[in-house]
């Protein structure tokens, strides 16, 4: 019997441990610890071979947004861990470091407008709003769109507009955008969204399977309209140590 209890322990822990009440102080602690982790991770993670510290304003924005409000109740105790979490409907809330990195790579200024395809929990949109950016975000899964809309309204993110829609054609009424984020997987980057990017604007797309979307594609549109993509792998690794020029 004793052995059986040991076997069952992880299950018991998962059910009981995660629903335990969390105190406000604990939350604040966990939150600032998360910001420190993100900062530390940025210090050891080169992007395209170079160090890429997260800017202070992005870290400040992340410090303002209460991630536990965007995480399902049963996962709240993990809300400030630096990891992705499931939010239902086969969707996830991204790892905080990746949210910070994506936000940072968009190089936004206060007052800029951003289009987001795939609202999910609304966390990314909230972080952008905390930066002083206007966000048009669309979510194709109705339940998620409704939840995110209610959540962002409750938390007073008035700069974010959530719509339940197919994001493929973007938002021609509010276009062009300074930044675009595509978090919903597709077989290709929607060309209409490229068209809705301002010259000088940037688009960011996490790629890879859920929970492991650790590569980014950064699309930039030059002032002459020329489009360039960049595959960013946030890891210190070079596949070949020595190459010869032809």
């Amino acid at each position, binding site marked *: 019997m004793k052995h059986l209890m040991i*076997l069952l*322990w*992880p*299950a018991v*822990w*998962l059910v009981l441990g995660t629903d335990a009440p969390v105190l406000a102080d604990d939350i604040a602690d966990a939150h600032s610890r998360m910001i420190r982790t993100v900062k530390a*991770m940025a210090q*050891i*993670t*080169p992007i*395209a*071979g170079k160090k890429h510290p997260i800017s202070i304003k992005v870290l400040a924005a992340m410090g303002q947004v209460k991630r536990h409000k965007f995480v399902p109740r049963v996962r709240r105790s993990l809300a400030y861990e630096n*990891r*992705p979490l*499931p939010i239902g*409907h*086969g969707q996830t809330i991204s*790892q905080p*470091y*990746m949210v910070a990195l994506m936000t940072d790579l968009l190089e936004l200024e206060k007052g800029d407008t951003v289009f987001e395809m795939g609202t999910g929990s609304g966390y990314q949109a909230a972080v952008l709003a905390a930066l002083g950016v206007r966000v048009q975000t669309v979510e*194709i899964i*109705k339940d998620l769109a409704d939840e995110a809309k209610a959540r962002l309204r409750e938390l007073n993110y008035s700069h974010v507009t959530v719509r339940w829609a*197919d994001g*493929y054609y973007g938002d021609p009424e509010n276009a062009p955008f300074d930044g675009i984020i595509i978090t919903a*997987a*597709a*077989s*290709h*980057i929607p*060309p209409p969204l*490229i*068209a809705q990017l301002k010259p000088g604007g940037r688009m960011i797309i996490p*790629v*890879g*399977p*859920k*929970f*492991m979307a*650790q*590569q980014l*594609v950064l*699309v930039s549109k030059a002032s002459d309209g020329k*489009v*360039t*993509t*960049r*595959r960013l*792998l*946030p*890891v*210190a*690794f*070079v*596949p*070949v*140590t*020595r*190459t*010869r020029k*032809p």
Partner: protein
Amino acid sequence: MLLAAVFVLSAAAIACEILLMRLFSIVAWHHFAYMIISLALLGYGISGSIIAFAREWLLRRFRLVIATCCAGFTLLTVASFALAQILPFNPLEIYWDMAQLAWLAAIYLCLALPFLCAATAIGLALSQAGQGVGKVYFADLLGAGTGAPAIIAAMFWLPPEQCLKLVAAAGLVAAALILLRKPRRVMPAIGVLLVGIALALPWPAPWLEPRISPYKGLPQTLALPGMALVADRPSPLGHVSVVEAREVPLRHAPGLSLAATMPIPDQVGLFIDGDALTAITRFDGDTAPLAFLDQQIAALPYHLLVAPEVLVLGAGGGADVLRALYHGAKRVDAVELNSRIAELVRGRYGDFSGNLYDRPEVQLHVAEARAFLAHSRKQYDLIQISLLDSFAAAAAGLYALNESTLYTVEAIAAMLRRLKPAGLISITRWLKNPPRDNVRLFATAVAALKAQGVKRPGKRLALIRSWDTVTLLVANDPIPAEAIGRVRAFADRRGFDPVFFDGISDAEVNKRNVLARPFLYEAAVALLGPEAAAFTKAYAYDISPTTDDRPYFFHTLKLGQLKTILSATGPGRATLIEWGYVVLWATLAQAVIASVLLILLPLKTLSRAPAAGGARLRTLIYFAALGFGFLFLEIAFMQRFTLYLGHPLYAVAVVLSAFLIFAGAGSRTSAWLAARLGAVFSLRLAVAALIALALAYLALFPALPATAVGAGVAWLRVLFAVALIAPLAFAMGFPFPLGLAALDARAAHLVPWAWGINGCASVISAALATLLAIEFGFTTVVLAAAGFYVVAAMTFRGGAVPPPSIRIWETTKLPRLLSRFW
């Protein structure tokens, strides 16, 4: 009736194994299915321990226990799958959440139960058989040899959850057969059957329907508004789910130019095992709405050819065929392995697809690509292969375990032979970052060209890429400068990057879709230069050309580089690893740990009984060596025969059955031969024969696919394969029953332990054989198997079987003469 019951139960057990593998490939991912089922098979090892602990008690209630086990198998086959599905295991979260490991362990335990029941019944039957063990083992192998093809056939017609009920019902038949011993027992037997059926079959359908992981492509698509799952087509080659998009279009167009502005026509999605997507595109005979097909990277070869004759390998929903028609192809041969997909395009979506596969210029072949290439006599201007695997799975390295005989030096050589002068092979693949398989494909093409005697392969290769796809052209003749100009123009207009062709310069590469460095270009130049070997060695991933002997194209992880990868910092580290390969090691490690426990546990009980000196150690070595040897040979030859038979399913069905049935026949004969020649000599004869045959086949195989034996005639090839397997398998059937009979005579209490050891060794060897094949090739696996059989022969001491008594042998003195050499 006992033998009949063993036969049925054994058939049901192997069917259950194949079926659960299929079900978990649909629910989760193939490599996890592999790990889960491998470990569940440790139920065989557990049964050995249980019988060893309670042998006397169980033997006294022999028939009752076996009948209970059969009934238990019935109940648990369905119940454990239903339960395993409810457990909240999410394989994708293992990286983040250790609690997932507990759920994983719970799934193993759950699924081990039906195998434990079946194995306990069969193990007990073997323990009780004494010198008649050969007959029981024969029934066991014959059952397995019948069950495997039977379930594969059933999977064509019934959805997997229905098949599961069928398998469960077979357990009841076995239970009834056991109870049928005497006429007066007819009523209880019928009673068991009826009660069992009443309990096992009316399970609510939703409990058994595969609950696909919400993170796989099918549920992700179905979550979108207006998506409707309109049909399911069961197939052992991959369960096909049909999704119609009634509101939001599907828009499946991988490798599409960022500059493409035209709309994508309506599409119907075909998901294979709930993930890999191939789309049927609406087509009414007017090619104008198909303009997007020319904006995908795979359209490149059409800009170098005029009215080509095209061969599409892996035609799926038909995008590549449509592309050929859009570009005015004169004739298209479309090869698709999964007949269910072909049926859907031709039948239900015939009108929708413009009867694509029935157009006069298109001919559909339901066949495996390599087999088609080997047996076709036609010549083509273009052979095209595009994105056969799903992006997510490729990105995570989930295909690392999969053999792929489509991307080997031999395969490309076979394609080149089917090309007309100036013809092209066009292969489109996902771009991995950092590049691995893309570099390897280039290296494989270079090796294939060099093998054809081409002095300057660089003149026949062209490579371009988008941000996430790569297209390689391999030409039968040097690509003229004018054609290179068209490659440049194609890439320019669509925003793709030239990577390599004759005369390319540094300044042209890595401009629009930027990688940290122009890795692919550097690799291509290096692989064509004098320093190719040094570059291959220095590259962090294994990019050496793949061959038929080591066809693990997707496995590029170098063990020596593992430390570097693990010490790399940053969250992107996970993308450097191949999860399929990690899972294989994890399976092996878990199987070894569990096996050591299962083998050591009963020793305490066993040591109380008297045993001849060293009997336990010898038993351990002998039966472990047999477990390894048998599976190593079976797995290695299964792979080689797959290539020859030209269809993975026929190969599994034919090779597995032939191996099991002829090994069964060998087992049946073993006692007879041992009675005449002595157990020791019989065993050595069998081992010598099987090693000689295995080595001979090894030498024969490279020549097999090209030879005329059965060329184009499937049943002749099957017959030839069976004829080759028969003597080998027959010899392989000897050692196990001879060992058990000898053990029964010397130390009968060790028999169940031996059964458990064999079970554990089988599980370990399945993982180990794959690892060996991945690292060293199939030749090594066969040689290792020969080594194991030699070890077994050296350990064998025989039993209380009468000495040799056939005069003719005695007079020639051959046996004793030969035995001196062993």
